[in-house]
């Protein structure tokens, strides 16, 4: 597949101006994610108010696919309950590995812009890394890796 179909306006724009950039000083949960193969390296921090994601921020060195994925992820999970956010993690993983049809029912909204990575096996890990890291933060496991 031609990767240019993946590098759409929305992804390029989020890469250039990532939302929720920066780590939270008063985070209750945080984790670090590493994609050793390509060097994507991000940190995700969360502030949970009870079961609700009150604030979320990220930072790191990453490719456009990873950075845009993290930016759109943070925008999507802010204000959600932990259970809803975790459900999105699962749906995002399923979509990018071809197990969920982006045209079918799901809660991913505009995140379907990433569905094309399923045809670019070397880039799937870039898109998923922020979600793995978010999951690790929820679980309190501090680190996530795509390997």
């Amino acid at each position, binding site marked *: 597949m*031609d*990767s*240019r179909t*993946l*590098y759409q306006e929305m992804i*390029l724009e989020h*890469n*250039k101006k990532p939302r929720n950039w920066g780590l939270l000083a008063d985070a209750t949960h945080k984790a670090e994610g590493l994609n050793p*193969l*390509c*060097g*994507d*390296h991000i940190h995700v921090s969360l502030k949970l108010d009870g079961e609700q994601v009150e604030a979320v921020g990220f930072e790191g*060195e*990453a*490719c*456009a*696919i990873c*950075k845009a994925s993290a930016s759109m992820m943070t925008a999507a999970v802010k204000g959600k309950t932990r259970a809803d956010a975790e459900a999105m993690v699962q749906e995002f993983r399923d979509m990018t590995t071809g197990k969920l049809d982006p045209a079918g029912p799901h809660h991913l909204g505009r995140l379907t812009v990433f569905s094309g990575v399923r045809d*670019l096996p*070397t*880039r799937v890990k*870039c898109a998923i890394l922020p979600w793995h890291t978010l999951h690790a933060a929820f679980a309190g496991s501090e680190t996530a890796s795509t390997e």
Partner: protein
Amino acid sequence: MTARDPLLAPLDVAALRRDFPVLGLKVNGKPLVFLDNAASSQMPQPVIDRWNLYRKAQHANIHRAVHYLSETATAEYEKARHKVQAFINAAEPRECLFTSGTTDGINLVAQGYGRKFFGAGDEIILTTLEHHSNIVPWQMVAEEKGAKIRVVPVNDRGELLVDEYRKLFNANTKFVALTHVSNALGTITPVREMITIAHEHGVPVLVDGAQAAPHLKVDVQALDCDFYAFSGHKLCGPTGIGVLYGKAALLEKMQPYKGGGDMILSVTFEKTTYAPIPAKFEAGTPPIGEAITLGAAIDYLSGIGIERIAAHETDLLDYATDRFNRMPGVRLIGTAEKKAAVLSFAVEGVHPHDVGSLLNDDGVAIRTGHHCAQPVMQRFKVPATCRASFAFYNTTAEVDALVESLGRVQKLFA
């Protein structure tokens, strides 16, 4: 840049390219522009033919049976060893061991020499430019023996600081392992001078020649290196085969790295007597067809002439460096005065991984990442780079294709 000998006849690159079936490939509808030769180079038809001949009519296990096929395979395998000897100008064929690749050769020395001769407090000198395969094997043996790793620094151009290297030697220095050509930056290191310095201290030197053997004339006797390791698949040969050159006197006093068949003179449950070199280090059935095919690859490259290959690649490097220097927003990493045809670079505002994916859309194959040389990345404060690495079958038109494709990436991210 390395000076080009004006007396060398230029290559007929168009004719050579016809030897490589893969170079006719289309990727995403575009002609393949293969610029990832430092990772692995492509195989020409005569080498593919040699592989096929072995598989069709010469395969059997070597050094064992008395039948026709075994005798043929054994003779061809040992003939390949002679080709290796001539290629690197080793004093004797038995100093050329077949390994599975450069990594295997370095591990063989780290285990076979290091485990026998290193002790607590001993020091091993490596350089900032090393590939992980010339770092990790030494760390493993150092950890086991309580030895220490010392590292030669580089300047901002990616050149080793020989004066700093000189200062690292002391009574505890037991070994030096250094690369001949940096895989990440292309720097050609002053190995001859560094070996002389080590020998003044009575310290043996291993040279990682993975990136040098395909591009420079290697003469292990002129270098006076104690060990020299390289791989077949970067020499237009197959994967799974490599060479470790070692001075006979050193190989003889080392312990075997792997035990098994073919490396023994006699075995009882009380005692095993090892075979003489090279068999002592070639336990088990080796990659026979791979070794024979590597011999054919050496014939192919020698037929062209490594000096002519180097001259063409230097021309390509000069042309590419000039085009890159005129591209705003593109920064070269590694600008050593003496370089092999490797361009490591960063595109401002675009992660190398994105560059690699987008170049692939135009059929341009480069490597992106840390190139298994994370200390180099840390030294130049980048998480990863883009790397275009050239072979003798590349052309200036392919450099143009790379530059044009990069322009499109910059436009997309503007």
